[in-house]
């Protein structure tokens, strides 16, 4: 099977520092892939290697079956949008968008038509004669997008395209970019450190850390079945409870045993961390025979707006604390205040175990 983009054993070194270590990755045609990770994890380095802007130290990149590993950027097929937009400040919006078309020896009328079409596509039909400085950040980003798409590249690269924008504009542009990508069907890679952005926009997410890939998967997979403790911690919120694996399906934490999915990879007796997301902690209508029932004290209640984030201390095991999200309804119905004693449950199918 051949993919649109195939990255094989890609490494990038800066002197002694390894920015990317042996990365292999396939991307299908028309896919929207996000490189997600903390700053310095190598996601932008990987993107720039794919573009040929900062070539890798070793490894190969094939695009549509063609080996582009050693080609300069001008001989590859991609459009790119940077965090800074990199719009040419002295050219009008029309000239910016048409920048790559002029050198392709197309007729002037043809170029004009294409530019108008692109500006309509990004929702700026009347801004052609303006200069970038006269536009808002969000508008500038759309112009940058139109410019990158003008030459109909097979691959669209977005390097933190939304980070410089304020929260509201960012939310709106997320949807617009995603819709645009779906309409055009252009294979897209976006680099971001914002997990929410990755979760809402991507078909597949590549989570990176320390120059290596931690996990590749759909947003649901990444969120529901994080492959490593790093992914679990980086994407969304997560409780980690330290304990020991007593049996393949049982973790002992403090004086209590918790049921968990069967662990094949971990030897019995190893130190582990049991994890559960705050919203997966059950409070209401606990059946009498529910597994992993724990009596807790509510130690803190942080009002976050739509819900409250509660810090719970396990009774008789004060060192063990976990965080749970309580809806406003629940707080009202159960009359939860600081000091309230409750029983909660950690459903075994929502619990994951990682080596400590």
């Amino acid at each position, binding site marked *: 099977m051949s993919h649109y983009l195939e990255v094989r*054993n890609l490494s990038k070194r800066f002197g002694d520092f390894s920015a990317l270590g042996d990365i*292999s990755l396939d991307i299908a045609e028309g896919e929207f892939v996000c490189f997600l990770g903390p700053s310095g994890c190598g996601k932008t380095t990987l993107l720039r290697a794919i573009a040929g802007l900062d*070539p890798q130290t070793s490894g190969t990149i094939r695009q549509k079956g063609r080996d582009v590993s050693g080609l*300069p950027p001008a001989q590859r097929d991609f459009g790119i949008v*940077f965090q800074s937009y990199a719009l040419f400040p002295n050219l009008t919006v029309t000239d910016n968008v048409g*920048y790559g078309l002029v050198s392709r020896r197309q007729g002037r009328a043809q170029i004009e038509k294409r530019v108008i079409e692109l500006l309509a596509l990004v929702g700026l039909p009347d801004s052609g004669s303006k200069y970038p400085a006269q536009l808002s950040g969000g508008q500038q980003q759309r112009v940058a997008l139109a410019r990158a798409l003008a030459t109909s590249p097979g691959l669209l690269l977005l390097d933190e395209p939304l980070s410089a924008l304020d929260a509201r504009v960012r939310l709106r542009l997320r949807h617009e970019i995603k819709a645009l990508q779906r309409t055009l069907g252009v294979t897209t890679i976006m680099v971001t450190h914002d997990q929410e952005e990755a979760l809402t926009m991507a078909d597949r997410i590549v989570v990176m850390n320390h120059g290596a890939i931690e996990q590749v998967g759909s947003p649901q997979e990444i969120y529901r079945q994080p492959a490593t403790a790093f992914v679990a911690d980086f994407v969304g919120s997560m409780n980690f409870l330290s304990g020991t694996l007593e049996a393949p399906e049982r973790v002992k934490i403090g004086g209590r045993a918790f049921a968990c999915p069967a662990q094949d990879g971990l030897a019995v007796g190893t130190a582990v961390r049991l994890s559960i997301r705050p919203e997966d902690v059950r409070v209401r209508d606990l059946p009498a025979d529910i597994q992993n029932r724990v009596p807790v004290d509510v130690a803190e209640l942080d009002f976050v707006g739509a819900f409250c984030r509660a810090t719970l201390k396990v009774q008789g095991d004060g060192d063990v604390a976990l965080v749970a999200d309580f809806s406003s309804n629940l707080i009202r119905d159960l009359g939860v205040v600081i000091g309230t004693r409750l029983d909660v449950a950690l459903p075994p199918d929502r619990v994951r175990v990682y080596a400590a």
Partner: protein
Amino acid sequence: MSLAVLTPKIGLRISLSRDDLMMRGALVALVVMLLLIVGLPLWALLAKGFEDSDGKFVGLANYVSYFSTPALVNSALNSLHVSAVCTLIVVPISFLYAYALTRTVLPMRWLFQGVALIPIFAPSLLPGLALIYLFGNQGFFKALLDGGSIYGFDGMVIAQVFYCFPHATMILVTALATADARLYEAADALGASKLRVFFTVTLPGAKYGLISAALVVFTMVMTDFGIAKVIAGNFNVLATDVYKQVIGQQNFSMGAVVGMVLLAPAALAFVVDRLVQRKQVALLTARAVPLIPRPKPGRDAFFTIFCTIVCLWILTILGMAAWGSLIKYWPYNLSLTFANYEFGNFDSNGWGSYFNSLWMAAGAAIVGTAIMFVGAWLNEKTKGFGLVRGLVQLLAFLPMAVPGLVLGLGYIFFFNAPNNPLNFLYATMAILVINTVAHFYTVGHLTATTALKQIDPEFESVSASLKVPIWKTFGRVTVPICLPAILDIAIYLFVNAMTTVSSVIFLYAPDTKLASVAAVNIEEAGATAAAAALCLVIVVTSAAVKALHLLVDRFLLGRLQAWRRR
């Protein structure tokens, strides 16, 4: 993943694009050019110091004889002495002046700013000439000297202070202008006294500027030729020694040795300055809040008076030179005349040398700006090729450390060598242009580099992704954005080419004599008034060009570059 197994892990071969190849080629050409106009002339000078008059290698013999000639060693000590004294005088005055410009509320600030710059437009011998009118043997205030003479140490110091003042002030204005208002607010909130704030916030903030200004003044005094020539009298300094050895005694080897002795402190000052500058980088964060001075009557009055005195002093010196140039026969017939402006009566070139200067300055401005800007661009934007880029950086910085006299001397040795295929350039207008471009290369290169660093580094990435050749983006985007910086470089080159004496004094031919050099010659022949007249013509020309620049900057660019406005 069978592919992964099949792909052998071998070192990657990156093929270069046409852009890459073109830029690397151009960069190599730049290195060759810089070697020819900077590196090799200096090498020729260095080598000359180890040869006798027949070109035989004699090791350190010339240096031994230099250091065992008390008169020559004495000049070196004199140079150090006068440089140190001038530094101690100029830096405090400039600091107060810069402080007034940046941290107080002055009425007509722009006027004080403008007047302080006047000395930059004058050849250095102008203050010397003015002092001769004021305190010379037939000067106005000769009596004030109580039998002393203006020729010598004192005259040199006064003239040098005039000449160096704007340079130190500009550096200190920059240093003081970049203050973070929040630091002052914090100090106020903590109840620190004004004096304590000055010593704990203001002074540390300007520390690097002060060091830089001191080094610049020291080097300028050390290496200046014009003032020493006119007013040093029997007070021998290194700059005049070089001239005497080479032009007077035709002793090139000894001239080279004196040149090397002159080079040492200048180069040392340069290295210290670079080290200091490197430390300054992180001083001001992007989030700093600019400090806007608020009125404070007592302080503002004091600084207004101080600045007025400084300006009056500058204008007196300039005015004295102007008046002297218009007087029939000093001091016996004070009626006014334009006779001193008929330069044909004093120098065989007449006004020709002025037009030579204009041509030379225009040539240096155009050619130099193009080379410096394109060169800086190549050096910034070429990918990889680190060794060559490092070499460009080194060669571009070298001229700053080299006094003009020393570079000019190197040019004689290098371009006048009979076996040099380039010696057809010798005694042409071209060599004057080349020498001026080389002499002032560093500032132009730095200005261009700074401007280029301020624009988005991804422009080239974008144009590569759009398959637009990099030179097209250079012409369509980079140059228009950097136009103000490009104009700055051109004006800087023009003004310096008009006023410089030191480097070109060794290189002119009878028909390519420049105005500044002619002024030296005319003064040497005793026609002080005509020399002052010629200096004044130079001042007016460079100041006019600068004024034109400001107008263009404000009005023409404002209209052509509407995109800069929001």
